[in-house]
């Protein structure tokens, strides 16, 4: 009982700090949504607003009020589930998030699953063959690979697969103005567009999972209970899958939770490279436009989804490792 109250208090405190940072950080950036003076790209058109226009919009969006008042209004509206109105998109923030979030979820989840499975398989393979040539080669290669920033990797993949081989579309999440013959056709189109962003994101996380799996497995296989299992006369395969891998997976699962946070961050860059219409690309343009309500909304969604992931990881962890429940309860 006391334990639960502590958890709730801690959660509320975290949320409050989060909301405060979320509100004030965007507003600490120089400039405001309506003071456009220069172009970001050569040749770009920018409507330079008159002072009267600017005053009109500042009032319209309530940005002319004192900051603390704006903050209270923000909290009140949030309590009622209203994230506010996006300035640059001219529609409710929740609407903007709803249309872009599914694309980010799609590529982040696909990348999480792919990099976890591939990382565990490669890690196991490497640990099985430890100290042999193939293990050393894989380790050196993957570590070197991990050093390539994801946006650079994205550009390289774009150059190879799109520009030269013409295997994938260059931008977007679906073919514009397409007439689909059926659901399969539609799903195929989405997969076709998502392939390169997912590949880039997966590759950026692969090495981490690989190293963790390999190192934990190597540590675990020197433990006493493995020796016991072997002594019982179990086959090497059973020892590895039932005893070693199961224990080695614990840190991998924990890592997966954190990885989603990293992938959400990585999606900002990757989505920009591939013009993929997810939350990351939207966040980038919201920051450029100084669209405070939208920045707040997106950061909140990202923060909440990371919290939810961590919670889920906690639950899965309990199933994998009964000791957690025994000690914690």
């Amino acid at each position, binding site marked *: 009982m006391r334990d639960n109250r502590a958890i709730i208090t801690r959660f509320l405190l975290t949320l409050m700090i989060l909301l405060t940072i979320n509100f004030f950080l965007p507003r600490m950036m120089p400039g405001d949504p*309506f003071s456009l003076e220069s172009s970001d790209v050569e040749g770009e058109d920018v409507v330079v607003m008159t002072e009267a226009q600017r005053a009109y919009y500042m009032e319209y969006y309530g940005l002319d009020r004192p900051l603390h008042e704006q903050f209270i209004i923000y909290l009140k509206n949030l309590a009622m589930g209203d994230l506010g109105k996006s300035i640059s998109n001219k529609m409710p923030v929740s609407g903007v998030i709803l249309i872009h979030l599914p694309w980010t979820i799609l590529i982040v989840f696909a990348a999480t699953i792919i990099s976890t499975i591939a990382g565990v398989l490669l890690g196991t393979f490497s640990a099985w063959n430890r100290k042999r040539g193939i293990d050393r080669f894989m380790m050196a290669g993957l570590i*070197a690979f991990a050093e390539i920033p994801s946006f650079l990797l994205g550009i390289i993949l774009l150059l190879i697969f799109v520009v030269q081989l013409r295997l994938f579309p260059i931008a977007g999440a679906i073919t514009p103005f397409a007439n689909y013959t059926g659901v399969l056709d539609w799903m195929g189109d989405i997969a076709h567009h998502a392939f390169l962003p997912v590949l880039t994101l997966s590759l950026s996380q692969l090495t981490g999972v690989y190293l963790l799996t390999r190192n934990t497995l190597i540590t675990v296989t020197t433990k006493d209970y493995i020796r016991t299992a072997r002594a019982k006369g179990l086959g090497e395969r059973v020892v590895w899958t039932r005893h070693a891998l199961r224990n080695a997976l614990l840190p991998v699962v924990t890592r997966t939770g954190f990885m989603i946070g990293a992938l959400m961050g990585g999606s900002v860059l990757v989505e920009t490279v591939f013009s993929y219409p997810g939350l990351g690309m939207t966040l980038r343009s919201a920051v450029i*436009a100084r669209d405070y309500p939208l920045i707040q909304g997106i950061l909140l969604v990202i923060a909440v989804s990371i919290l939810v992931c961590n919670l889920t990881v906690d639950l899965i962890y309990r199933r994998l490792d009964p000791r957690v429940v025994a000690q914690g309860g």
Partner: protein
Amino acid sequence: MKKIGLLAVSLALICIVAGIAGCTTTTQSTTGSSGADQAEVVRLAGGDYGYPQPFTIYPRGPGSSKVTMIFDSLLEKDEEGLIPWLAERWDVSPDGKEYTFHLREGIKWHDGAPFTANDVKFTHDYELKHVPISGGIEAGIIDHVQVVDDHTVRFVLNQPAATFLYKMCGFKVIPEHIYSTVSDPEGFIAPEAVTGTGPYRLAEYNKEHGSYQFIANTEYWGPKPTIRVVEFIPISDALISFEQGEIDFTGITPDTMDWVKSNPDVRIVQQPAFWAYEFYFNAVRCPELGDKRIRQAFAYAIDRDELVSKVQRGAGIRGNMGILPDDHIWYNPDQPAYAFDLAKAKALLNEAGWKDTDGDGIRDKGGKKLSYTLSLASGEVRIGELIKARLKDVGIDIQVRALESRSRDANLKSGDYELLISGFGGWGQDADYLRTRYSDVVTGTTSSVASAAAVYGYHNEVLNDLAAREVVELDDGKRKAIVFEMQKIIAEDIPTIPLYYTTSYDAWYISKYDGWMNMFDHHARTHSKLTYLERTGIAARR
């Protein structure tokens, strides 16, 4: 170890890419050079710029050009000047305060309702309460609008305004029968919100993916649309999309031109140079910059030609100290030129009493050194470094300070800088911008706040007088003479230095569509509504 691994992998990848590049040969279809003046579908670079009605587009990017495809204005712009559009002709009262527009008869909105003078008056009155993103008439110019009859509407001004007709080109008329019940046009994204009188209807808009599809209005009252379907599709790299035939038109830079040139089906045309970098002096913060000899020394010492060749790889024109670019319809070629001349710069600084007394290479006077911070956006660092090197030769010390562009903008607005560089477009617009940018008094009734000139402390009584006359001069010939004089004065004073005007190139597939044209004051061909209409119909209108 990690570093070496990275290097090896990168090198390997580069080899792979280069290898693939070497193997594939791109084949291009070659067609005759006679271009298509009609097209079924033309695809252009898209991106989300908002729902295309006047209140919901975004201020950044080509949103307003999409609005003009759906909505008409009383006048339009072609390559040479203003042409009648919804208004067939107009009369101006002798005192210049009353404009009576005679509207073309038989025009219908997309939903079939007739277009009348009431819609024009309604648009004006409605926009007093709800400010559109672009094309609104500034508060204070128009006193009121009266409907004379169904096809005649009169604008009564508070005082003569030379730029009134020019500004009316951006005044897009919205339908009274739809908008009169809309209290929040900012959030009005229903299908009827894009009911206009214009040559295109919006068939599809996808905000999420940034795509638009416009279909020609077969019952259009004006020149016939030449392209049946205009599509804006999302792209990540315009040149690659163009090369792959995804889009039919793109802007290109000189370094990528060689590839495009080799294709006989591609036409390449230079854009008018209406986008420029401007170099600001803040004489409020650094009083010695109020001395025009110092500013002139900067103008002589900064090698604008070097900037064009090194930063822009030739794709630019060095700035005129009279501000208006060479491509501007009212550019005055007879003005002080300020070719790169270190000796003249040094002489001017000596004359002003700035000498290097302590031998540190930086000129000083009374304990103050000619040492400044130059604020610019991170993309402009190369410009800053070249300027720094040239100014060092005459004894002026510069520290380049790169900022995020919005921060730089905020500093420019508040006067929080010493020297600053900013890049922006619109240099082809009506020359009245010489007044709004360099006159430091509120002239006429068109502005209620201090101009940029007041922020950085530039003041010239003669220029202010000319500006006050220019804005109320209705005779184009006389007004042009005043603008010519203003350019001379500005070139002598150098309130700011236009470093260079950029010249981009447009490229398009001739066989797809060849009817691209410009407005006289704007650089982008895809932004002109007339670009999508029959040329013969347009010529008949002048």
